[in-house]
């Protein structure tokens, strides 16, 4: 994971009760849609967001929140292959695609 890269970032986690992939959206809500994800370019804002994602209340809703790199300016998407797969589902089972 390119933690030190300067790419804009989103915050992702897995939902506690069912393991679903979720992204931190506006108003601290966790959404399964990447389109809802808050994209952060500023390191300071990122830290604040990650801290709030790791707060006790959130940790009862999600597991292991982390920041991930995004790419694409107008239509951001996860940058790494791993996060693309988390978003879309296993590449070998397109019938089980998430979106």
């Amino acid at each position, binding site marked *: 994971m390119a933690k030190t890269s300067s790419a804009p970032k989103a915050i992702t986690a897995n939902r506690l009760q069912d*393991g679903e992939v979720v992204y931190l959206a506006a108003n601290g809500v966790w959404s399964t849609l990447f389109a809802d994800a808050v994209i952060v370019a500023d390191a300071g804002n990122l830290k604040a967001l990650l801290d709030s994602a790791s707060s006790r209340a959130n*940790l009862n809703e999600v597991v292991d929140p982390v920041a991930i790199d995004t790419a694409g300016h107008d239509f951001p998407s996860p940058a790494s292959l791993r996060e693309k*797969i*988390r978003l879309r589902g296993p590449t070998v089972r397109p019938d*089980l695609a998430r979106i």
Partner: protein
Amino acid sequence: MYSYDTFDQTLVEQRAAEFRAQVARRLSGDLTEEHFRPLRLLNGLYLQLHAYMLRVAIPYGTLSSRQLHMLADIATKYDRGYGHFTTRQNIQYNWIKLEESPDILDDLAAVEMHAIQTSGNVIRNVTADHFAGVIPNEADDPRITCEIIRQWSTLHPEFSFLPRKFKIAVTGAAEDRAAIRFHDIGIRIRRDTAGVLVNDIYVGGGMGRTPFVGPLVRESLPESELLSYLEAVLRVYNRYGRRDNIYKARIKILVDALGVDEFSRQIELEFAQTRVEGLDLPQEEVQRIRAFFAEPPYETSLPSELAKHHEVSTPAFHDWLRASVLPHKAPGYAIVTISLKPIGGIPGDASTQQMHAIASLAERLSLDEIRVTHEQNLVLPHVRQIDLHEVWKALVAEGLATPNVGLVSDIISCPGLDYCSLANARSIPIAQRISERFAELKQQHDIGPLKIKISGCINGCGHHHAGHIGILGVDRKGEEFYQIMLGGSGDETASIGELLGPGFSSDTVVDAVANVVKTYLDLRHPGEIFLYAVRRLGLVPFKERLYARS
């Protein structure tokens, strides 16, 4: 096979109830993830890329049809209609919800199954030769020993917080189909010169970051002292295994650091005490367990039909017989291997429908028993030869009759980056493309026995170190990259594959594998299988072909 008494059954039910309470405490926030995680791992529940993954234990790879029907139902009820059989004879479900997992454990308990200790730093599922009890020339059915170890290791109070996971495998035959030399403890059961059953104990084998072939630590251990010996090994490991670095925490590191002689000396010191502390099973209990693995009531005076089938069969049936059927120790019977490697398919996956079909077939035509191999295939262990044609037709109807067992397209692959949060690269698409490249059966038979094993990360769940051709997926600057190694083997001639050279991109790795196979075909002696050719030739001719232009 073993069947639970009230003690076994109560324990499994109480374990499921305990987990239900732990999940409730987690969901309510009374338990943090940090404290809950090892507890959920003790019941085989991982958090993977897409959802929770549940690994259900299939002790020594043996299932009744009733159990397989339940595994199929679980796939439908709680998952997405399929399960994945693993290289340790277990089954995995990839789309599990935490809140439903206690219900799954209850369903499993109803058919004498569980997910106890299938992950975490504990003693894991004890695996065995998948042909146990039915292959000719076995010294003893290793599953008896496996069941004894299973009960001893279940919720063992001293060994539930080990430095790292602990894997044990047992074989009762001279041919090692259980890869015992690549386990933390590998046990070979044999008869000594007086015909008495003894155990040879190998300790410190493993795959992963630092592969080792486990050295022989104790020869000819009386079978009646096995548990007290295992207690000695586990205690030394629990006390002296490294806990400062998870990459150096397996027992193989301790054995290597101390050297076999010193390690053995420390075990013997501890064993001198444990063997007189009443830890071994009374003989009556051993006999009670042994009785469950007695020979089933085979029919006698059955016709031996294999010869007849070979004469009048269709080519397709003949191809399947050739790949899938082995002689059985009982006259008139056969061992049938079911390939879960359709050309271009996902290795080791089976749909709900396929699992139900196999379970029904087993109930009717395999004395109600199924096995899971270490190579992600299934076995019907007690098929009458006169029923082989009917079995084949039933398997064809479900897409389960690919005649490729042991051939190049019978690929072993971990789930890889498509599913696993530990992975660096995808493994399944590589397996699919290799399979398609070598789809043509005549070519496969020409190549002969060839085990390709693919792992998507260094943890090596695809057993790439033990592949005749091993492929390891790595992440090179964000791109999937694949290293090829040759000459590994998990059988009794155990060897670790040797790295061929610089890795290959996703685009070029399949060509590279094809190049390796072509090199073998060009240079082999008549009748020489791939593994032996590599051992004879060494890597130089393969390097020359593969890296000719660089």
